[in-house]
C-alpha cells in the first residue's frame, strides 16, 4: 500500500484516536477551517486525502473507474455526504432491490439529492466493466447523483471490510453479500447503517439531513 502521502498535522498527531487530542487539535485548527466546519479540517487549504479525518473511509487509497470510464480516487469523494453500498449488476434478486431502495431514498430527498452522492461499488470487477455499469445505470433509470464504480478485487475486499459489508464469491460466478448500505458525512465518517432490504429509510434521511447542515 502506498504510504508516501504527506503527513498532515492532524494525522500525525491524532493517530491513536485519542478523542481529547482530536478535539484539542480541532479547536486549535478552528481558525484555519472557519466557523462552519468546527469539528474537522477537511476544508483546510491543502485539501486532499491528508486532510481527511483519521476515521474517514475515504482514507482508503484505492482508485476506481466510474460508469464513464473516468478514474476516481476514494479520497476525491469527500466533500459531500454519501450513501455507499456494494452490488453486482448480474444480481437478479437482492441488488435490484437495494438499488430500488436507494432510488426511493433519492426521491424522498427531493432537491437535496444534488448535494449527496449515491456510490454503488461493484463486487464483480470481472463482469462489471465501466460499459456494463453505464448500461445498468441506463436500464435502471439512475439519476446523475448515482456514481457506479469498479476496481480490482483487492480494492473491493478492502472497501468491503472498511464498510463492514461482507461478500463472498460463489462457485457459479455470483456473490453472497450483505444487503445493507452505509451513510457517511462529507468527510467520510460513518453516520448510520441500514442493514436490510426494504428497511425504513427515515434514519438515513435524518443522517443525510444532519450532515448537510454541517
Amino acid at each position: 500500500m502506498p504510504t508516501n502521502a504527506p503527513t498532515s498535522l492532524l494525522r500525525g498527531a491524532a493517530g491513536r484516536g485519542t478523542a481529547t487530542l482530536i478535539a484539542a487539535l480541532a479547536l486549535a485548527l478552528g481558525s484555519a477551517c472557519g466557523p462552519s466546519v468546527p469539528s474537522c479540517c477537511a476544508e483546510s487549504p491543502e485539501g486532499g486525502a491528508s486532510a481527511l479525518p483519521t476515521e474517514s473511509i475515504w482514507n482508503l487509497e484505492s482508485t476506481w473507474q466510474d460508469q464513464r470510464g473516468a478514474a476516481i480516487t476514494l479520497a476525491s469523494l469527500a466533500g459531500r455526504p454519501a450513501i455507499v453500498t456494494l452490488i453486482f449488476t448480474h444480481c437478479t434478486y437482492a441488488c435490484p432491490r437495494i438499488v430500488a431502495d436507494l432510488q426511493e431514498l433519492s426521491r424522498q430527498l427531493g432537491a437535496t439529492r444534488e448535494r449527496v452522492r449515491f456510490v454503488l461499488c461493484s463486487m464483480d470487477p470481472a463482469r462489471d466493466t465501466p460499459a456494463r455499469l453505464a448500461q445498468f445505470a441506463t436500464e435502471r433509470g439512475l439519476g446523475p447523483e448515482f456514481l457506479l464504480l469498479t476496481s480490482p478485487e483487492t480494492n473491493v475486499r478492502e472497501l468491503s471490510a472498511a464498510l463492514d459489508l461482507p461478500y463472498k464469491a460463489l462457485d457459479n460466478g455470483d456473490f453472497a453479500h450483505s444487503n445493507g448500505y452505509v451513510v457517511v458525512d462529507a468527510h467520510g465518517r460513518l453516520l448510520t447503517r441500514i442493514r436490510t432490504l426494504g428497511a425504513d429509510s427515515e434514519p438515513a434521511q435524518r443522517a443525510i439531513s444532519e450532515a448537510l447542515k454541517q
Partner: protein
Amino acid sequence: MTHSAWNSTSTLVCAMLIGGAIGCGRRHATVQSKPPATASPSEPSVSTPLVSVPALTYRPPSPGPNDQKTVTLAPFQLEAHAVTNAQYLDFVGAEPAWQRQRVRAVFADAGYLQHWPGDLEIATSDRDLPVVNVSWFSARAYAAWRGRRLPTQAEWEAVAAVGLLALDGSTELGTMKRILDWYSRPGGAPLQAVRSTPPNCLGVYDLHGLVWEWVEDFNSALLTDDSRGGGSKDNSLFCGSGALGAANPSDYATFMRQAFRSGLRARYTVRNLGFRCAADLVRTH
C-alpha cells in the same frame, strides 16, 4: 524491493504421496530460517521462508445447497510461521503511516501495537514472538510490503487440516486432541515464540497452539450462497445446528475459528491475533 524467499522448498513429495496414504514425511528442517537465538536486536529481520503447498482438497465446514462439498485449491505458498514483532518492526520503520501514533483510525483501533514500548521499539524478549494487536488492514499492508498477500480462509484452513504425519490430519487422533486442548485453554497465557509447536508434514508451524491468524476473507465466514435471508445464516452455523449441516462435525475447531472470525471487524486488534503471509506459486524473480 527484492525478495530472497521465493526459493521455497518444493513439497511435491507430499503431493506424490497422497494416493499412497503413506504420509508426507517430516521435511520441516529444510524450511527453517536462522535460529532466533542468534538474531541480535539490531539485525534486520528477514522474510519468513515460504513453504510450497500442493493442491489440497478443502471441505467448506458449512456448505450451502449450491456450494461444492469439496474444493481443490490451486497450489500456493504459505509462510512457515507467523510474522514476528521483529519483522513487523522493520515494516513500520519502512512504512511510517503504519506506526502506532500515525495509523489512521479507519485502519486500526486504539489497541494497535499496544504491547510495544514505543512506536519503533519492541522488547528484546518479544522479537521472535508473533506480532499481535494488528488489524486486518495493517496485516494486509505488511504482506503487500513483502510482495505477498494474506492467505484466503480456504487456503489457511486447508493447510491447518494437514497432519503432522500425513496430508489428511483428520485421521490423527492425537493431533485433533492437541488442537482442541489449545482452544480449551484459557486465554491470557504468555505468548510463545514462533516455531514453538510441532510443524505439520509440509513444514508449516504454529497453525494451532500459538495465536489466531487473520485471513484475507475473514468477513465472509457467515455468508452462504443465499442473500435472501438477509445475508447471513447465523442459525445454521453455530454449535449444534451448525454441526448438523457440517461436512465434518468432528472438526469443532473449525467452527470455533469461524465464529471468532465472524466477530471481527477489519480495524479490530486482539492481543492473541496475528497473521502470516501467502504467495502465489508461479512467481519468479
